[in-house]
């Protein structure tokens, strides 16, 4: 058996062990769903670079490592260590997951309006499985890849958010996924379900961090149902250790005149792949996807977005930017499908990449498929270096070359962060961005 198949065998063993453990505890539909997902995983197998969707992203290291599920143990994360990941001046609801498992002890859930549920998914699957049944696994559907199937088959915990019609949660819900050294060489499968019914509103922050460096694999999946006139603001902030693997998925369905704004920020990880899939299933839906990736060393970040305009008058805006240094590699593929019924669609997509080193590389592929005739669709993709004229201009004003480079890099990347509505989140990310620049002190002085 070759190493890749051996790797897959380890995952199949994990699946079998999980099925034995949960068989008697879980409701029928969930067991059936997991069985199907496990079978689909087995049938699909891990993608290879021969697969068009994975052409530039080789997941062989994840396969070979044969990551197994982490033990369910919410202890072990030190509260003081966690405190640096909270946003300053951001009140709200804080849920902590340690090595994939909800920690009630570390979490601080504030008062929620009537009709709002924010709970551990594990708990929700036991207490109110019938409420989850029509959404869980149905939004991601079967279109997705082997990692999605793997998550569905194994997902034990995460968050379940339900907003009854008209419910507005004013304070953001901050989900902190912490990985401790105890989860070294393990796989974590966080799973979230957000259901925002008609006219409801909430902001949810998924935040992935590492306490102590340990090679591990986060395979996360979030499903979002945005009801008519509802608005969901979603953040996916990934600042995991430099040797962590991360595959993430955000799958959303948008109802009539609803709004989804999703920000994806990647500042860490060795190999990162994110899939965002949004279906604008009713008239007048609006979807905004913003992304920033800052990658150095031998890091690899791959963002795939897929927006389906199914019904008329939908709007989508995509704005992704990347800064690549060292031998970093980035992939962006933005697919927009305008279905025959989706007249008056207005779609715009931009992806700009800044290469700071000769050995860095970026591949950007817009893919527009348009089957309606009265639509506005535009896209633009660039891969380039710092503007030499701007650099010379700053230097001619007595600013050190290295500082000028950092300043221009910061300005390039901050353009994405400027679109973040939550000021405490934006400000923290701006600080993190400065820290990730080589000569951060001089840049800090300027701002």
């Amino acid at each position, binding site marked *: 058996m070759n190493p890749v198949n051996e790797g897959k065998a380890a995952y199949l063993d994990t699946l079998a062990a999980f099925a034995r453990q949960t068989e008697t505890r879980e409701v029928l539909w969930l067991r059936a769903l997991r069985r199907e997902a496990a079978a689909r995983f087995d049938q699909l197998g891990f993608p290879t670079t021969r697969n068009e969707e994975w052409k530039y992203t080789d997941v062989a290291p994840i396969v070979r490592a044969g990551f197994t599920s982490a033990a369910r143990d919410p202890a072990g994360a030190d509260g003081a260590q966690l405190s640096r990941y909270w946003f300053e001046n951001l009140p709200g609801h804080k849920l902590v997951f340690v090595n994939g498992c909800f920690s009630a002890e570390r979490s601080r859930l504030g008062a929620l309006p009537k009709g709002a549920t924010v709970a551990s998914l594990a708990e929700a699957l036991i207490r109110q499985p019938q409420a989850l049944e029509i959404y869980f696994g149905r939004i991601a559907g079967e279109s997705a890849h082997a990692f999605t199937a793997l998550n569905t088959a194994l997902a034990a915990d995460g968050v379940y958010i339900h907003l009854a019609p008209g419910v507005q949660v004013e304070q953001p819900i901050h989900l902190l996924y912490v990985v401790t050294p105890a989860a070294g060489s393990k796989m974590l499968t966080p799973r979230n379900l957000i259901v925002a019914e008609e006219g409801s509103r909430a902001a949810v922050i998924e935040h992935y961090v590492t306490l102590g460096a340990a090679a591990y694999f986060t395979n996360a999946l979030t499903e979002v149902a945005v009801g008519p006139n509802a608005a969901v603001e979603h953040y996916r902030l990934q600042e995991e250790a430099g040797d962590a693997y991360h595959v993430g998925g955000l799958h959303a369905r948008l109802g009539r005149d609803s709004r989804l704004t999703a920000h994806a920020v990647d500042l860490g990880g060795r190999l990162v792949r994110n899939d965002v899939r949004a279906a604008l299933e009713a008239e007048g839906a609006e979807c905004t996807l913003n992304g920033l990736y800052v990658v150095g060393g031998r890091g690899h970040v791959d963002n795939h977005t897929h927006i389906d305009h199914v019904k008329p008058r939908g709007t989508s805006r995509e704005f992704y930017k990347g800064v690549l240094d060292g031998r970093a590699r980035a992939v962006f593929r933005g697919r927009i499908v305008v279905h025959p019924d989706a007249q008056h669609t207005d779609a715009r997509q931009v992806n700009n990449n800044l290469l700071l080193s000769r050995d860095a590389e970026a591949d950007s592929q817009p893919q527009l498929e348009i089957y309606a005739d009265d639509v506005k669709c535009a896209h633009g993709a660039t891969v380039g270096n710092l*503007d*030499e*004229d*701007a650099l*010379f*201009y*700053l*230097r*001619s*004003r*007595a*600013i*050190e*070359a290295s*500082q*000028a480079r950092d*300043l*221009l890099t*910061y*300005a*390039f990347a*901050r*353009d994405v962060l400027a679109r973040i509505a939550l000021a405490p989140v934006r400000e923290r990310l701006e600080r993190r961005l400065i820290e990730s620049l080589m000569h951060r002190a001089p840049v800090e*002085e*300027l*701002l």
Partner: protein
Amino acid sequence: MLSIKNLHASVDGKPILKGLSLEVKAGEVHAIMGPNGSGKSTLANVLAGRENYVVTQGEVIYRGKNLLASAPEERAREGVFLAFQYPVEIPGVSNIYMLKAALNAVRKARGESELDALDFIALVKERMKLAEIPEEFLYRSVNEGFSGGEKKRNEILQMALLEPRLAILDETDSGLDIDALQVVARGVNALRSPERAIVLVTHYQRLLNYIVPDYVHVLASGRIVKSGDRTLAQELDRQGYGWVAQEGAAASA
């Protein structure tokens, strides 16, 4: 202050300057005039240290030191200032950040203390009046969305703030209406002092009605072919560049 001897320079392998010599003393204002393609802007860019302008021969001595050996930022710290013909737009970097960074770098080089935020703002506001720039421009990205005239006035603001020893203005007058031209002239005249030198690179003598130069030089085919006082500029205005270029060609033959 500035001594240029037999300067040869190329851009993308193409020789532009072919043996240019010029002496500029403190307190003087020199106008460099000439037809398009004569090398005026090349001279300005070589002095500021732009990388793709390659000096192949000759020397430039600034305050007793080889200017060509220094990086652009070092030249700026030593008091060399170039007002750009085409000021660059820098999205995301606000004007005030750049001004503050520039001023503090120059002050540090002069052995002065860095200005705190309040003193800095007070100084900028004072100089903004001179350049007739509204305050909101401070908080906008550098030159982004500025009109041509606003960009040039922003150059004058930077010059007024940095108080260079040697100011080189590269066609700062081109494309300006009469009001903007007067703002530029006021900025330059305010800077005139016995310790400073100013080099005006210009195509038209119009600017020289407002800034009276001590010397006028005509540049043709990469060399200075004629020098004189301000009356030379007036003559050029009447007769065009043709006659000087011919005279220069005859002289060098």
